[in-house]
């Protein structure tokens, strides 16, 4: 799976009207400010999952619904594919209001879930019932692919239950202001809490792309969120209760609340990050190289633009940084709209001309939105790239001790120039440190000048480690093997491995100082969440955010009805 990085040559983007269009340089792409402006695209993981699940061959049903009048009990949602079945097992609880918290320190939730690998028997459900509601305090097994939980939106949930119980649809303004009935506060996969290891399921076609099990679990969770409000409305309203209208349902996504814990992920998985970013760059290069814009592609582009404008109009945030970014985005979407009136025009490569115009005219928000719009009409030409977005990290692990010191120095000079030029003598350039809290084992960010714990700093200060390595290498003969250096400098082993990987993967490193005073963790989070397919990125501080997933998407049980009608 590393072929994306290896095969994609980095070519200067200044391609002429008929020359080859290469990938943008890492120093353009891998900047926090740009990554923190990312929008979901058709390569986002939830879109990849939905394409597979809605393209036929998959059936959905709800074989278990054992929920009582208080909304307590269990349910099973089943997705049956050509060769395998996956089941979301949901446990619904009656949570007192004062215990509701999105933070990882919470110990109680409105609902808890596990994605079961297959069709669970009663014994499986009983076993899960003894563990899943406990979340981190319980254990699941190799038969489970994810563990998650969700809390109600206090504002919207009761409004919807009360409205439906009284026989009327909820107020659209209220629905749009929140956007979801429940929000997940953690979705654990990849072997967490005893679940199946990623390496054991990664060869399955439906799980090969990143985070497919997690996305499936959240999509089925969205179905649960509307089923539980309809259930409670029916209990409350009896015969006068009605079901959610199609339009209201479509507007509802699943919320997600995410804290700092997610921020280091992209830094800890450099090969994976490379493959995600390289797939995007390849998609952009392919579309820019197209010689024409068909009528249907232009139509699709304009539809996507209208949807983006509607999304931006409904996107609310009270955070000053995000308010500014939303202003940029709305202004840029208006500019894009004006430009599209003359699209495709007479350019030899109309998509490239549009992109080049965007680069010269738009803010980073607008450029990233344009990226998503540009690739939207071109599924035939780019959807295959989703298969290249995984990474075999074990295969990348072994470092090359036979490499000469001169070569390693060369890698640092060519791949880490951005890091070598930082002046770490300036306190602002290492004002912060990443650490793991003893209390909840979650990553946090400390202030080096005033907080305890800098001696327990996590290795996320890549720029400084690269610089330290470069300094240590200066004294070594260029012809010596790296093995000899590492025998004397065990502390540089981590960075040597990383630098060798970066030499093979041009988009492996975020090219910004992750311990600088002005670094914004939410930029890392937005990048990752956009790859998931999140819309309505809404920071609550520079360290935690809310988003919405699957807004506007179909529901699995509605697909089942469409198929049978």
């Amino acid at each position, binding site marked *: 799976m590393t072929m994306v990085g290896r095969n994609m040559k980095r070519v200067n983007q200044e391609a002429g009207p008929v020359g080859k269009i290469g990938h943008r340089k890492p120093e353009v792409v891998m900047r926090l400010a740009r990554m923190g402006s990312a929008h979901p695209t058709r390569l986002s993981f939830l879109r990849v999952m939905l394409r597979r699940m809605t393209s036929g061959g998959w059936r959905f049903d709800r074989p278990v619904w054992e929920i009582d009048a208080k909304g*307590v*009990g*269990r349910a099973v949602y089943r997705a049956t594919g050509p060769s395998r079945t996956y089941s979301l097992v949901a446990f*619904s*609880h009656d949570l*007192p209001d004062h215990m*509701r*918290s*999105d*933070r990882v320190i919470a*110990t*109680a*939730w409105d609902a808890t879930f596990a994605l079961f690998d297959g069709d669970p028997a009663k014994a499986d459900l*009983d076993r899960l*019932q*003894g563990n899943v*509601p*406990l979340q981190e*305090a*319980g*254990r699941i*097994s*190799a038969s489970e692919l994810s563990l998650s939980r969700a809390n109600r939106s206090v504002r919207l949930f009761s409004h919807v239950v009360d409205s439906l119980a009284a026989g009327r649809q909820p107020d659209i303004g209220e629905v749009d202001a929140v956007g979801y009935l429940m929000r997940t506060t953690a979705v654990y996969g*990849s*072997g*967490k809490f*005893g679940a*199946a*290891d990623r*390496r054991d399921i990664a060869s399955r076609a439906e799980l090969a792309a990143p985070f497919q099990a997690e996305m499936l679990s959240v999509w089925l969770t969205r179905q649960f969120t509307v089923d539980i409000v309809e259930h409670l409305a029916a209990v409350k309203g009896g015969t006068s209760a009605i079901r959610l209208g199609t339009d209201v349902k479509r507007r509802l996504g699943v919320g997600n609340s995410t804290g700092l814990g997610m921020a280091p992920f992209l830094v800890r998985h450099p090969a994976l990050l490379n493959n995600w970013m390289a797939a995007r760059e390849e998609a952009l290069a392919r579309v820019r190289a197209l010689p024409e814009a068909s009528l249907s592609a232009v139509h699709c582009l304009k539809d996507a633009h209208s949807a983006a404008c509607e999304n931006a109009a409904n996107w609310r945030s009270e955070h000053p940084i995000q308010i500014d970014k939303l202003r940029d985005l709305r202004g840029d979407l208006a500019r894009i709209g004006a430009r599209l009136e003359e699209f495709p025009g007479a350019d030899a490569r109309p998509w490239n001309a549009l992109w080049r115009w965007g680069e010269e005219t738009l803010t980073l928000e607008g450029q990233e939105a344009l990226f998503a719009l540009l690739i939207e009409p071109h599924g035939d030409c780019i959807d295959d790239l989703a298969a290249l977005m995984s990474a075999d990290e074990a295969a990348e*692990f*072994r*470092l090359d*001790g*036979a490499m000469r010191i001169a070569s390693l120095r060369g890698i640092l000079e060519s791949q880490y120039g951005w890091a070598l030029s930082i002046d770490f003598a300036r306190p602002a350039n290492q004002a912060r440190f990443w*650490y*793991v809290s*003893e*209390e909840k*084992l979650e990553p*946090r*960010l*400390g202030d080096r000048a005033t*907080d*305890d*714990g800098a001696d*327990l700093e996590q290795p996320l200060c890549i720029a400084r480690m690269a610089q330290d390595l470069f300094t240590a290498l200066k004294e070594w003969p260029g012809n010596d*093997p*790296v*093995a000899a250096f*590492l*025998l004397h400098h*065990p*502390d*540089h*082993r*981590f*960075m040597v*491995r990383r630098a060798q990987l970066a030499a093979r993967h041009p988009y492996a490193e975020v090219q910004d100082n992750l311990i600088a005073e002005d670094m914004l963790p939410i930029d890392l989070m937005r990048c990752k969440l956009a790859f998931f397919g999140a819309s309505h990125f809404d920071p*609550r501080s520079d360290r935690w955010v809310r988003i919405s997933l699957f807004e506007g998407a179909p529901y699995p049980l509605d697909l089942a009805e469409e198929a049978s009608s």
Partner: protein
Amino acid sequence: MIAEANDPTRSGPPLPATPLENIGLSRNEVETLCAKAARGAGMSWGHAEEAGFATGWLSARGLDGPEALLTHIEKTHGKAWGDVCPVIEKGRWRPSAADPLCPIALGATLNDFCGLDDGRLEDGALTVGPISHPLLVLPFLSHVAARLKRSIAVGWQGGSLRMDGEGAMTGDLTGFAALQEATLDLSTTAESVRPRPQKAMRTCKRETFLRLNDFAMKTTVPPSDKSRTDAGSGTSDND
């Protein structure tokens, strides 16, 4: 990591009152726990990653990597790198002082020197040791075998085994796994290795888990009001 359950969330039966003897752990969890424990015991970040790799590799083959790592770091934590890393001479790698070699340091260095003159196994044996808990060296030897595309013979006083680059092993594995300390003769061999079924462990003794976790917790920072506030506790999220 294993926190107290909170009753109001329960819609099912409580956990068994007596703690289970074994805890189910995925390979990912073994790797993560052991990497953190190794770091907590004083290894560099790069070697802590190697410890995670080695224990996960062993667990996947039904061998108790976590237990071996635990007993090794309980004896050696806090020792300086110079006391546990190999001194390299052609054909003979030995400790610099009285302590046995760290199996993680040795294994990583064997991988680093693979293909270099000082690490040659192809023409005659390389003698290494004494090594603490030599079981932990096997995953690294498998990488050497893969790199050389040859099987590797491992001999020690009282036994021998062979392994290949796919991780298949044959010989006195049980005796090898029990060694607390040994000097090994390593060489390539033309004899092939007949794979035998290996079942992943997927469990860890509770006691081992808890003691490794004690080491892992040494990498964490105790909470303060400020750190809680920075993480978001000052704002309400119940809306």
